[in-house]
């Protein structure tokens, strides 16, 4: 096992934690946090696997991750704005996907 | 190892001690104000000593300048933010610890 594999496994762990939290939480801010952590996990797998060389690490995944980080922050900003709007309209920061009791 | 190496190790160790003190203070002190006091020790002195220790090993004056700039920046930001937190805590009526 090398350092790259260690970080790749950590990345997978982060991704799976994120997926689980995304599914079980009702509060939208939690879901946004979960999505961000999922994204970080994916970035980590990409970069860990890019570092499997003796010479310089592969720059293409690094460039993709930088793009990904910026896209993630813009998506987060949009999601937070949507959450605020939903909360302003319905009074609750969660989605109404279960039938009311 | 030369004399400057020994000195640098000494400074770095002293810096680490201040970081440890900051963390212990943050964990053990009884209220926001005293914890703030502990935190700034790590911020200002701890990082300062580590910067001095590393500056002795730096290859060029430019990198010494950059190290010092980082320290000054942390000093400036750290002290302003400590002030803001303490002022807000007083405004909000967070109680001070009395023996």
């Amino acid at each position, binding site marked *: 096992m090398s350092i790259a594999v260690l970080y790749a496994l950590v990345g997978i762990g982060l991704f799976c934690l994120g997926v689980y939290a995304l599914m079980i939480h009702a509060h939208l801010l939690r879901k946004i946090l979960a999505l961000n952590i999922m994204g970080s996990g994916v970035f980590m797998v990409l970069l860990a696997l890019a570092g499997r060389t003796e010479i310089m690490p592969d720059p293409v995944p690094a460039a993709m991750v930088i793009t990904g980080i910026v896209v993630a922050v813009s998506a987060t900003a949009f999601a937070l704005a949507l959450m605020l709007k939903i909360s302003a309209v319905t009074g609750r920061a969660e989605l109404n996907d279960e039938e009311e009791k | *190892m030369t004399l400057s*190496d020994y000195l640098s*190790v000494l400074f*770095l160790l002293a*810096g*680490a001690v201040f*970081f*440890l003190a*900051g*963390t212990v203070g*943050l*964990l053990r002190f009884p209220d*926001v104000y005293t*914890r*703030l006091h502990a*935190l700034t020790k*790590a*911020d200002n002195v*701890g*990082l300062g000593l*580590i*910067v001095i220790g*590393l500056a002795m*090993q730096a290859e060029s004056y430019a*990198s010494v300048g*950059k*190290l010092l*700039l*980082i320290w000054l*920046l*942390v000093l400036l*930001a*750290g002290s*302003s*933010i400590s002030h*803001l*937190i303490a002022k*807000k*805590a007083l*405004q*909000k*009526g*967070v*109680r001070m610890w009395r023996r």
Partner: protein
Amino acid sequence: METFYLVLVLFLLLNLAAGMWRVLLGPTAADRMMAAQLFGTTAVAVLLLLGQVEGRSALHDVAFVFALLSAVTAVAFVRRAWSEQEKKHDSK
């Protein structure tokens, strides 16, 4: 020398882990944020030490930007998140 730097890095990381306890304990929001602030400063020190080990000045830039931007988060906390509305929650 390199071993010494790495030992220091490890020590600072363990320090960080201990400091995280304060985030969990609270009790006021400021305590949690202060722990994050200590986290930031320690990370700056770790970055500088790692930069020395690997001999790359790029890490000095990372540390510099780090110091600049952790200030922005802290300001956001003081100005926005820690407002008057939580008074009774905090003063106990």
